């Protein structure tokens, strides 16, 4: 087909009619192709245009696709088995362990931790309390387990127990107590640590979690100085971490936060980590627990 443009004299001088004819030809050819693409797109399950969806929407869709069938369930099943199984040098189960609601009372215990325990004279979170029970009831060496790297040996047992115990409080609302002096002291300590800037990058927890609207790449960062909402922040742990395929308890999460700030690990069950748990847990009062959750 012979083009019937006038001599090109630059865009402003191009007669409208010639432009219209040219565009008609272009679109006519494209139209056949577009119709084919349209049919194909209609037949495909997924939407064709990423531009119509923001990255945040796409990430939300990804998370939704994985929400049912959370591999954390495998850890929950293991945790239940470990709670009821006679283990350790004393060959006894954990069924008499007091998580704050009385010996053996598991439902509701998770959402009222960390709390003060009279028998140890200190505020403990779920994981340090489990260590106490594993030592006192079953004869395990608590110090050795605390020194064991995350994801290895008895640390995996702890993660499984944490998953099951948290699951027994799923849907309940956080109610971390502040009735005792020790509990209030730990809250204040946690707050102090939360804002304490140190390390080679001069980071504090507050650097990432002290304000609304913060983000690292595609990861939104909740503000933890107040209640960030149901199933967010403190209320989203323990969780199955897709990236490593492991169940992370709050101890691992907090210790890893310090590692990411280029601090050394404060240590498993250390006062610093428990204090931070009290601070975040009290701030999250009323938030619904969805643990164990699913995380990237």
């Amino acid at each position: 087909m012979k083009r019937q443009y006038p001599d090109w004299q630059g865009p402003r001088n191009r007669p409208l009619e010639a432009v219209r004819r040219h565009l008609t030809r272009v679109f006519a050819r494209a139209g056949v192709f577009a119709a084919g693409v349209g049919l194909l797109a209609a037949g495909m399950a997924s939407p064709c245009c990423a531009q119509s969806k923001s990255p945040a929407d796409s990430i939300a869709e990804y998370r939704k696709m994985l929400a049912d069938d959370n591999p954390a369930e495998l850890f929950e099943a293991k945790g239940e088995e470990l709670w009821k199984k006679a283990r350790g040098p004393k060959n006894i189960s954990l069924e008499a362990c007091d998580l704050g609601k009385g010996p053996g009372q598991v439902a509701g215990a998770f959402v009222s931790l960390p709390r003060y325990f009279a028998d140890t004279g200190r505020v403990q979170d779920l994981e340090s309390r489990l260590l106490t029970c594993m030592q006192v009831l079953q004869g395990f060496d608590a110090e050795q387990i605390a020194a064991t790297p995350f994801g290895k040996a008895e640390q995996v047992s702890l993660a499984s127990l944490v998953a099951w115990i948290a699951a027994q409080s799923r849907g309940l609302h956080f109610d971390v107590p502040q009735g005792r002096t020790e509990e209030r002291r730990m809250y204040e300590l946690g707050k102090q640590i939360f804002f304490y800037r140190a390390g080679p990058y001069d980071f504090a927890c507050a650097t990432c979690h002290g304000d609304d609207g913060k983000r690292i790449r595609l990861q939104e960062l909740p503000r933890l100085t107040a209640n960030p909402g149901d199933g967010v922040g403190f209320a989203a742990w323990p969780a199955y971490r897709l990236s490593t395929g492991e169940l992370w308890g709050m101890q691992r999460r907090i210790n890893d936060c310090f590692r990411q700030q280029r601090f050394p690990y404060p240590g498993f069950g250390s006062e610093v980590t428990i204090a931070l748990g009290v601070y975040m847990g009290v701030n999250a009062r009323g938030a619904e627990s969805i643990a164990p959750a699913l995380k990237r």
Partner: protein
Amino acid sequence: MADPMKIRAQAADGKTTVRVLMAHEMETGQRKDPAGKIIPAWYIQQVSAQLNGAIVLTAQWGPSISKNPFLQFTVRGGKAGDRVAISWIDNSGERRSDEATVS
């Protein structure tokens, strides 16, 4: 002995949807440990699904199936009370079988 699978089987509208979570490392054999040594490949290679004792689906998997593998399939028919059994064999020869009742 590998940990148990989580099997859910639900009958509705003349079909039974089965969802399975298996406990397995699914190590590709491409990763290195902190010392720089290759972590050996260790992954489920064959999966078999049975309804009331008859094989309805089999699968061959490569190491690129995710850790703690997920499987979903739909049986034609099936009703509450039927037995679903899932079995797997990995490249080391280890096996695991679990059963669940259709709800």
